[in-house]
């Protein structure tokens, strides 16, 4: 009983903190993006202002929308992404919740929030939202392939190379970084998997070059075209959270190193230092993996994105899988 209560309390506190950090990182993203374009950019707290403003604005439900789906979708989307953080170990902090197949659950939680957005788009009763929802579905079907390959390969490698712990559990990867376990072929394979996972991130978070479902100059923000007020605020939170969540998962899988113990810290200070270091890694990954990419490229068309994920990224992930398997044999 006390265990459940502790988890409930710590989970609530953590999610609140994560929410703030995700919005802050969104602000950093916008600022860095602007600076790279030689613009001044918004204040770093701008996303906070945006979200707070949207929460007090009128929530308009279009006449042709299916109201309960339309209103329910943002709630489901934001909840599903928030749940992801309950399964991610942050630094030396163990995850709040843990099962035998965390990584698979996380992949499904991402998919759930995307499906919620698609449902909201279809329920909007707007042709633009409809197209946006169709595109999001196609995009999902495309990037799930490399994503699945990466996740299963990592679990298989962890299992076969005899790393202690559940192979589908993020704590396993954090406890023993895979880079140290693998030989040179394995390291190459891991690098390939890392690159293909990073290629999936823009599509997961709906940023250029994969903001196809929200393309504002084509279909006027597509999916979220009809949303306003509280619902839009929740979608904004969803996008910010997806960005941080995706980067947090990548950090846990590929860059799990901690800083606290090497600094000789113990107790609460160790937890705090590792926690901060974890979020610093997330920030760096977000800046280099998302912000830089979205500054450097234009938007794909949906079939081009599909092709990119099935052929190029899928091929790279497969190459990584083969290299890691060869490494296990060697």
């Amino acid at each position, binding site marked *: 009983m006390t265990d459940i209560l502790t988890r409930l309390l710590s989970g609530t506190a953590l999610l609140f903190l994560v929410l703030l950090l995700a919005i802050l990182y969104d602000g950093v993203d916008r600022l860095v993006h602007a600076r790279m374009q030689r613009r001044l950019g918004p204040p770093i707290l701008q996303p906070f202002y945006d979200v707070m403003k949207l929460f007090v604005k009128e929530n308009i439900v279009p006449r042709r929308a299916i109201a309960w789906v339309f209103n329910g979708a943002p709630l489901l989307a934001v909840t599903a992404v928030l749940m992801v953080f309950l399964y991610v170990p942050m630094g030396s902090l163990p995850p709040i919740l843990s099962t035998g197949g965390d990584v698979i659950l996380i992949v499904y939680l991402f998919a759930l929030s995307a499906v919620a957005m698609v449902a909201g788009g279809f329920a909007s009763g707007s*042709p633009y939202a409809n197209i946006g929802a169709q595109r999001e579905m196609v995009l999902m079907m495309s990037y799930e392939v490399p994503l699945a390959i990466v996740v299963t390969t990592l679990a298989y490698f962890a299992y076969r190379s005899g790393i202690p712990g559940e192979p589908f559990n993020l704590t396993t990867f954090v406890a023993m970084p895979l880079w140290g376990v693998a030989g040179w072929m394995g390291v190459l394979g891991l690098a390939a998997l890392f690159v293909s996972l990073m290629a999936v991130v823009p599509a997961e978070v709906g940023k250029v070059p994969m903001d196809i479902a929200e393309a*504002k100059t084509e279909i*006027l923000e597509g999916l979220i075209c009809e949303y306003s007020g509280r619902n839009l605020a929740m979608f904004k939170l969803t996008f910010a959270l997806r960005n941080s969540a995706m980067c947090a998962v990548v950090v846990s899988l590929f860059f799990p190193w901690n800083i606290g113990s090497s600094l000789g810290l113990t107790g609460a200070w160790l937890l705090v230092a590792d926690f901060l270091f974890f979020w610093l890694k997330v920030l760096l990954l977000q800046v280099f993996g998302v912000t830089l990419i979205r*500054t450097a*490229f234009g938007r794909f068309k949906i079939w*081009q994105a599909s092709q990119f994920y099935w052929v190029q990224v899928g091929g790279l992930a497969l190459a990584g899988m083969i290299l890691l398997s060869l490494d296990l044999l060697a």
Partner: protein
Amino acid sequence: MSAGSHKTYRIPIGPVHVGLKEPVTTWLDVDGERIVKATVRPGSIHRGIEWMARERNPIQVIYLAERICGICSFTHIVAFLRAVEDAAKIEVPIRAQYIRSLVLELERVHSHILWAGVACYTFGYDSAFNLGMLLREKVMDVLEALTGNRVNYGVGTVGGVRRDLTPRAAKAVREMIEFYRREFQTFLDVVTEDPIAKARMRNVGVLSQEDAVKYCALGPTARGSGLRVDLRHSSPYEAYGDLGVTPLVPQDYNGEVFGDVYDRFFVRVMEVIQSLELLEKIVDGIPEGPITWEPKLPKVLSALKAADGIGWGIIEGPRGDDTHVVKLTKGEENVTWWKVRAPTYANAVSWPLMFKDQEIADAPLIINSIDPCISCMERILVSDARAGRSEILTRARLVERCREKTRRLMGA
């Protein structure tokens, strides 16, 4: 998207749309992402400028003509002035012709850079858009140094220009040429070598050479389809006779011509570089002399009052041929009638062809690819509030009404 069934649905692009600079509606019948049919419906921004001109004398109309377009404003007034000078048989001094060409080329530079930026923005390449806007500031500064204004320069007048090219301004122009030679290349590289930019523009919105002829495409739209048409070459006006302009077509650089958005993009960015060369020649070769035929306005006005006849002015604007026709009547101060045919009017006709079998994602890019200037184009407004009906005029009826009006105006 759904296999087998081919149910199409309609989505509007416009009249107000993030990807468009000006209001125009395009109804797209789409099957999944594929465009089956496109119907272009202009008519959202008619302003009745030609009618307003009939209560003004030619000098006043200059400032009206300048406000036809916010980007190619000088193109419109030079076309108008040439029409008036043609009607009144006024000679423009050579120095004034050079200054007109100078401002026209500066305008072409800023228009093309603006367009290139907006095209990048349309396919989500915001960084290139911002870079383009940043580069464009330089030419805007030079225009301001030269004329005192950033957009509507107000330097044209009947029989010449109102501002001379001072040595300081000439230096600013030279500096600008150097600046663009240095900086513009990065923009060109960024966009033409970017794989996504190429994937988004290649084989999109194709207008074949035959169709470009058949549908009377003009300017960069026609040149992007491989037609060697350029009024600066085929019928030189102002100082262009001395400058030797050759039409810039993609096949001269890339070996082949696709007639797609990429080619139109390529033609425009290369024309910026061509314009820099022309600017250099203009600044080097500008002769000394007066800048107007007659500096005293009352004298000009009385000469215009005495003039009688129809004058034509056709020049190559940044978007294509801009045609102005003016009728002046002896003894009347005001312009009797004035007809403007902006390049978009001709280019917009080829929109439905370009839309064929493209995707929704391409639609705003295709609309933007001819660099539409909707408020330049819009001339016809049909409304009958009392009867409460809307009517679309057929071509035959329009021609008939047009002739009717012309006969009435000419007092026949």
